[in-house]
């Protein structure tokens, strides 16, 4: 028997950690290294979540790890210019750009850009060195290492990632765009870490784009921590557009203080296996959270969104809308938990999940979960699973629109309810366009990538 067959994934990961700890630490920051030991201990207890774990009931995470993957503990030297092989599909957008290759921040041109108004965009490693006080306060403060093995695994291994800091009162008018690229000659597991700090009364828009550029198996296990302080506003848009051999495991933790506003929009346009965890904590009165999501799946793709909105204090609002279209043999899940704690009076929390199944083989499991311990609240949730509306289809055909085009218009209309929530017009139009392409099957490969990998 081979070595991998006899060792289980957990032991393998722990051994990998122990054997490479020096390399991992060397290629990272002492402030991140500081958390590794405890994290690996947690992982030793928790392991990779199995189907027995209620939260992971609908996604076989273990099978993702049954393949062999390379792990890089230092950025690989690359012999190409990223610009030559990758062109962002959102070209007219004027953004502050950050590039991450296989989980390591790419100098572009510097590893840390400091704007005139004090906004910082850069690598986690360099930011930790320059802003230790921010790191000590916020790094790993929200991530639940004690309850989710994948999060603990990330904390143990993550070496770099993106750091965004918007200081008190600063308004970042240009959107910040982070492009995560996966490119390797072998199957690869990447684990990186992002930290976004929005200080009091600051404002920013952050767009994250995930792409895979070579026809190899990729697993990304990514933790992002976001803090939105009093009166601050953040719009966080994540676009997942990877090939069918890619797996994304994302864990996003947000914490909002008094009168802050946060909009998250997770657009899963393409990917083999996607599991997104979103934890939103409303920690200050008057905080307003909006969680939007869209998943478009076909073939044997799988997309699973788990969201947890925690109304910890009174007078907060949350509004959640996730929509999905599943074609062919695609499968998916939505589990939306809303917790209204005992003292969180005057909470308003709304949740909705709507799904369109295009074939008899496509499957979606949807599970709204409302737990309310306060007595003066307004909450609602609803989930629908349906098919293309025959009456609407006939109506459109009766106006001369062919069946395929009519279906596309209907699907596009269905998705637009999520996309229209994006506030930047040029971005919204581009994403509408990408969704349209995706629905037409024209987004079958990663943009200008020369490799026809999906």
């Amino acid at each position, binding site marked *: 028997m081979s070595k991998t067959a006899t060792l289980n994934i957990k032991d393998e990961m722990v051994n990998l950690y122990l054997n490479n700890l020096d390399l991992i630490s060397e290629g990272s920051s002492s402030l991140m290294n500081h958390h590794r030991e405890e994290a690996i201990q947690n992982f030793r207890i928790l392991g990779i979540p199995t189907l027995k774990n209620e939260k992971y009931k609908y996604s076989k995470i273990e099978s993702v790890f049954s393949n062999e993957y390379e792990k890089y503990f230092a950025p690989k030297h690359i012999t190409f210019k990223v610009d030559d092989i990758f062109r962002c599909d959102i070209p007219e957008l004027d953004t502050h750009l950050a590039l991450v290759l296989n989980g390591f921040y790419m100098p572009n041109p510097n590893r840390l850009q400091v704007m005139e108004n004090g906004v910082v965009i850069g690598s986690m490693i360099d930011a930790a060195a320059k802003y230790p006080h921010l790191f000590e306060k916020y790094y790993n403060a929200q991530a639940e290492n004690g309850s989710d093995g994948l999060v603990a695994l990330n904390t143990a291994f993550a070496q770099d990632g993106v750091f965004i800091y918007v200081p008190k009162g600063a308004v970042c008018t240009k959107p910040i765009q982070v492009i995560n690229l996966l490119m390797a000659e072998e199957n690869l597991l990447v684990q990186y870490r992002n930290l976004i700090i929005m200080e009091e009364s600051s404002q920013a828009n952050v767009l994250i784009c995930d792409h895979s550029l070579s026809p190899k198996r990729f697993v990304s296990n990514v933790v992002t921590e976001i803090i939105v302080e009093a009166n601050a506003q953040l719009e966080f848009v994540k676009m997942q557009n990877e090939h069918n051999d890619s797996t994304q495991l994302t864990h996003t933790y947000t914490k909002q203080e008094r009168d802050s506003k946060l909009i998250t929009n997770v657009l899963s346009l393409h990917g083999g296996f996607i599991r997104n965890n979103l934890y939103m904590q409303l920690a200050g009165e008057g905080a307003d959270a909006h969680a939007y999501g869209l998943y478009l799946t076909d073939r044997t793709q799988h997309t699973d969104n788990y969201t947890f909105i925690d109304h910890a204090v009174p007078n907060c609002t949350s509004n959640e809308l996730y929509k999905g279209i599943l074609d062919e043999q695609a499968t998916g899940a939505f589990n939306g938990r809303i917790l209204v704690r005992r003292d969180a009076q005057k909470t308003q929390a709304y949740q909705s999940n709507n799904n369109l199944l295009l074939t008899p083989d496509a499957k979606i499991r949807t599970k709204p979960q409302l737990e309310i311990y306060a007595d003066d609240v307004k909450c609602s949730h609803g989930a629908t699973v349906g098919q293309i*509306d025959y*009456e*609407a289809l*006939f*109506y*459109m*055909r*009766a*106006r*001369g*629109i*062919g*069946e395929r*085009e*009519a279906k596309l*218009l*209907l699907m*596009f*209309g*269905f*998705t*637009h*309810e999520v996309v229209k929530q994006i506030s930047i017009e040029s971005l919204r139009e581009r994403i509408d366009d990408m969704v349209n392409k995706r629905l037409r099957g024209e987004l079958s490969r990663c943009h200008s990538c020369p490799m026809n990998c999906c």
Partner: protein
Amino acid sequence: MLVIKDLHAKINDKEILKGINLEVKPGEVHAIMGPNGSGKSTLASVLTGRELVEVTHGSVTFNGKNVLEMPAEIRSREGIFLSFQYPVEIPGVSMVNFMKAAVNEHRKYRNLEPLSASDFLKLLRERKELVEIDSALTNRSVNEGFSGGEKKKNEIFQMAMLEPKLSILDETDSGLDIDALRVVANGVNKLKTAENATIVITHYQRLLDYIVPDFVHILYNGRIVKSAGKELALELEEKGYDWIKNGN
């Protein structure tokens, strides 16, 4: 233009149309009247290609082409338009996108280039004015949250956009107040030319005060039992459908 010969059709094994004969020529307005359940809407469904209805016998030709073999979208592109009795709400699809897709599919069928964005908007504006519909309606999703009157006006607006050769107005007057009725009728009259034709399906004579028919047909129990000029509608209004049911 339209020739219907001995048309029989059923829905779920129940025969609804039991031998319809009708010929419509360019420039004509035909009214089809009849009590509930007589087959009026089924006839409209057969003509526009609704798949729930099964034709068991007879033929329908439109400018010499066999209509029954055409899918709904081809019938539309050939120039047959149905104003729905119950227009469908389509959330998320804007009127503008809906009409742009429809107009351009019609143009493609005639080997014409799609309209440019500005030409399309110009056409949209012109036609809105022609049929006097509220400008804001085209900024909304198709029929979503429209009042009954707005939905019917929107049907006539779509008719104006697509310029059909044959328009079938299925109970377009139902649920309309007198002002909306006038707007709808004016729209239909303005669109009337010597080349196109209209079939008005209605319960009541009221609409026919505004859209004056050349011929009135009374449909009863799946057959046209009486055909005459516009005076027939008035006679029917006076005597009621019992007059027909009692075998006259």
